[in-house]
């Protein structure tokens, strides 16, 4: 059975008559549960079977068996390592067949990235709010900028402007700190001598 398409407000299942409701009709589609206006776009994948092909048992000893399930009949070899695979282990992608191990090795789908440019900018700016911690934040920001300059940024379009800003702020803070130290050391103390 296909999964139920539910209202986003009350989770009441939306009947099939309201799927792909024609927008030209006078009255829009409404949830039968909470009467909230709905726009339900359903696509042919809704009728696709959820489960893949089940593995078949070996019928004769001469039949090739799956490398991972020795009692299941092999249906395809892995295009990477050549191991025989049953219907359960066979992963088909772009017309090629992979075993789970090879699929894991070859698949390079990033699900997470660290944004070093944002870290550098935070190190350069946040400590400045408390003034003195900037003495430690600025060198740390410069370190991150230099060390991670070539690290990949986000996978969506993003410029290096945060790196530039972080370096600029950090250098300005270091220059300011240097000037303050110089002023304390060099300028003679005022007052009665």
């Amino acid at each position, binding site marked *: 059975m296909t999964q139920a398409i539910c209202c*986003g407000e009350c989770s009441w299942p939306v009947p099939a008559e309201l799927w792909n409701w024609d927008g030209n009709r006078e009255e829009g589609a409404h949830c039968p549960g909470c009467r909230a206006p709905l726009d339900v*776009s359903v696509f042919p994948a809704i009728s696709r079977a959820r489960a893949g092909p089940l593995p078949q048992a070996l019928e004769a000893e001469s039949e090739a068996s799956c490398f991972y399930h020795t009692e299941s009949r092999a249906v395809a070899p892995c295009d990477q390592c050549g191991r025989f695979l049953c219907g359960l282990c066979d992963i088909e992608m772009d017309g090629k067949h992979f075993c789970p191990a090879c699929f894991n090795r070859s698949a390079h789908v990033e699900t997470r990235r660290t*944004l070093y440019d944002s870290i550098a900018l935070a190190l350069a700016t946040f400590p400045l709010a408390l003034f003195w911690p900037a003495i430690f934040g600025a060198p740390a920001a410069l370190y991150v900028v230099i060390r991670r300059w070539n690290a990949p940024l986000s996978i969506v379009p993003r410029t290096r402007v945060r790196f530039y800003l972080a370096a600029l702020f950090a250098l300005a803070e270091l220059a300011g700190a240097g000037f303050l130290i110089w002023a304390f050391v060099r300028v003679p103390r005022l007052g009665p001598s």
Partner: protein
Amino acid sequence: MAKSIYRRLTRRRRALFGYSQLWAAPDHLLLVQSSRFVENYQRFAFADVQAIVVTERRDRLVAQISIALAAILWSAAALAMQGWFGRGFFLITGALAVAAVAVDILRGPRCRCHLYTAVSRELLAPVDRVRTAKRFLAEIRPAVEAAQGRLEQAPVETPFTPAGAPPEIPAAHGYLPELVFVLFLIDAALLLASLRFPRSPVAGALPTTFFAEIVLVIVALLRAGRESRRVIYAVIAAALVCIGWDGFHLGRSLIALSLESARRPHPEALMTAWEPLAHGEAIFAVAWRIAAGTVGLVMAYLSRIA
């Protein structure tokens, strides 16, 4: 720099510690969830998208107008200020709050957007306005249909859909309105006591109880949508206007006190002689509190026994 395959679909939906955003690639949808320093990615292949459901949410015009009125009253406090700093503070913060409400109203009705695949039902947080949802669907629907084709008729084996509307669930009435009305009566008693015994420390408690009143009234009005006792909430809304009036005079009195105490070498005597509200204003504050508290409690009682 290599050209990215991603095209921006929505603006960033910002939260306190990050944002989320939707991007489109030639064959999939990318949901980016950022916590400022780390981005997490979720991909939905166009070939796997089963459905996209956009549900319009209940409007909150009453709450928006209440907040705007409160912000205008806040800005009006600038009139009672003497110095430029005080005036500027009240004007700027009030204007910012009004602007925030105006932007919220101009962005249009809110919605929730869910994307269905065979194994998941994902809330697309960046699609939070009906206008954004329309733009999003106009871009995504052709891409999904290019990958899958059009659904000409619903599948023979349709999911379970119960016939008719679900049974009405009676909303349970909370006791917050009753609490607010009791607080009105307590404040009326405190005000009367401060009028009768001007040297007593009762007046010092009034700013605190006024603040509690404001918070409880706003919370009660925000929760009003869940209840059916409309008349009770109309009384509370009217009380909010009166609170604004009292707050205006109380603020003016406090500012005058602080300015006077700054001038005097020994402000302690001034503090003990302080009257938060002038006689006429105090009588008005007592009268409306007694009226609202009594009427509200009687109506709440009647609605419970009905």
